[in-house]
């Protein structure tokens, strides 16, 4: 190609490259692997104190070779370092808080095998068969909703079906520090179309709802039969019929109002944020 007699080559536009990078910059913190949610959820808190991190890695890791007492078991929810405890048939997902929990009495013991990648002073621990840990109450919280593990007052295990993102959840401020977070519509995500859908809740783990859509109005992209991931945030309104704190159970039929959350640059699909969840 030539211009004014000079031989030139094409180079990509700087602004276009910048737009690409911004479009894929992702959230401000690393995303945890699904079965390692505890680590990924609050990495800053975790790396803030290595003694605490080592303790947490050792005590909280639950892998699939775990044993369990008659009333409680633990299992892996993903590869390296699981973060859930199943107690009385309910799955509890562990997530680090932004403040120290005030804990109360021990109410159950569980066997917690260590992570396969657990390290002490940078070296893996060999022949580690895990530890017995006690489940303790969090002050003011029914253990059927959430509990902690003795020795770690910065991780709360939340029963499936509860959403700490919602402002009225009793541990909300402990997780987010403010009544204004988490707000999915921050600078990296602009509000898009809003519409309503009805669907069946397939799972409600910490962080999001997985829903099979039965019907949707006002959206071309969400067709019946499609399984979508919906994020609640601090502004999500939960129907009083779900109780206080609100709990939704897998298999429930839900009516959900969502708003699309559009990443900059139009490079990726919008996230779906729940504005209202009802029966």
């Amino acid at each position: 190609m030539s211009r004014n007699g000079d031989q030139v080559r094409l180079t990509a536009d700087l602004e276009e490259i910048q737009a690409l990078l911004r479009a894929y910059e992702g959230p401000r913190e690393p995303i945890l692997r699904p079965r390692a949610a505890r680590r990924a959820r609050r990495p800053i808190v975790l790396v803030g104190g290595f003694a605490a991190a080592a303790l947490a890695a050792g005590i909280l890791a639950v892998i699939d070779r775990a044993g369990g007492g008659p009333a409680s078991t633990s299992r892996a929810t993903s590869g390296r370092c699981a973060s859930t405890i199943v107690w009385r048939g309910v799955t509890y997902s562990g997530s680090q808080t932004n403040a120290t929990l005030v804990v109360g009495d021990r109410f159950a013991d569980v066997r917690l095998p260590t992570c396969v990648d657990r390290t002490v002073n940078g070296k893996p621990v060999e022949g580690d068969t895990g530890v017995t840990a006690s489940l303790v109450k969090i002050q003011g919280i029914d253990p059927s909703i959430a509990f902690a593990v003795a020795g770690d007052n910065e991780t709360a295990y939340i029963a499936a079906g509860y959403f700490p993102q919602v402002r009225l959840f009793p541990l909300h401020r402990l997780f987010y520090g403010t009544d204004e977070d988490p707000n999915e519509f921050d600078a990296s995500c602009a509000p898009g179309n809003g519409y309503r859908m009805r669907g069946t809740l397939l799972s409600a783990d910490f962080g999001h709802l997985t829903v099979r859509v039965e019907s949707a109005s006002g959206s071309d992209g969400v067709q019946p039969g499609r399984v979508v991931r919906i994020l609640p945030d601090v502004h999500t309104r939960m129907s009083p019929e779900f109780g206080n704190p609100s709990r939704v159970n897998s298999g429930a039929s839900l009516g959900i109002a969502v708003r699309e959350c559009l990443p900059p640059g139009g490079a990726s699909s919008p996230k779906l944020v729940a504005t209202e969840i009802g029966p």
Partner: protein
Amino acid sequence: MIDHTELSALARRASNGDEQAVGEVLRRLSPVITRTARLIVGAGSWAAEDAAQEALLDVARGLSRLENPDALWSWALRVTSTRAVKIARREAFLAFRRTSDEVEGIAAESRSERMQALRDAFDRLPTRMRAVVVLRLYVGLSEAETAEALGCAVGTVKSQLHEGRRRLASMLDKQGFAPLTINAEEEQDEQKRRSSAADG
């Protein structure tokens, strides 16, 4: 916006063992560390998320040994780049990143074919070239700072960025997307720089 004066003061406290300051430094640097590592390794893969976490851990571990608190910002980016480049190479992740190793949300389907093509092209750049592009065009480091972060010469940064842009343009062009910038002056500057480097 990072307040570097405040960051330096925090870094001093952190290097003296103030755990609260360590936490605050990490909180402030987390977005840039996370996103830099993610973009260098390749947004949308778990390898990238692992790299972001490991970079944060590297920074946390190194804070107590930081000799010059005023250099925290560039030091953290150097640590991050080193970790990200190492992981990107180790994982050879480009071959499988959008299959089983996909992170929902970041790796979502593109809504723009052109953006998707550009992203694919970016993923095919050599690791260090991606790092140069990310540090210069996303983080906004100067050529000198980028060179320091990657442990290479300023001239290398210039040429890598230019070559990266050229390759992106070429790959887009081959896929039928109308490019781009035609910058004769820039090209001439680059040719002069190459000639001068060859003469030297």
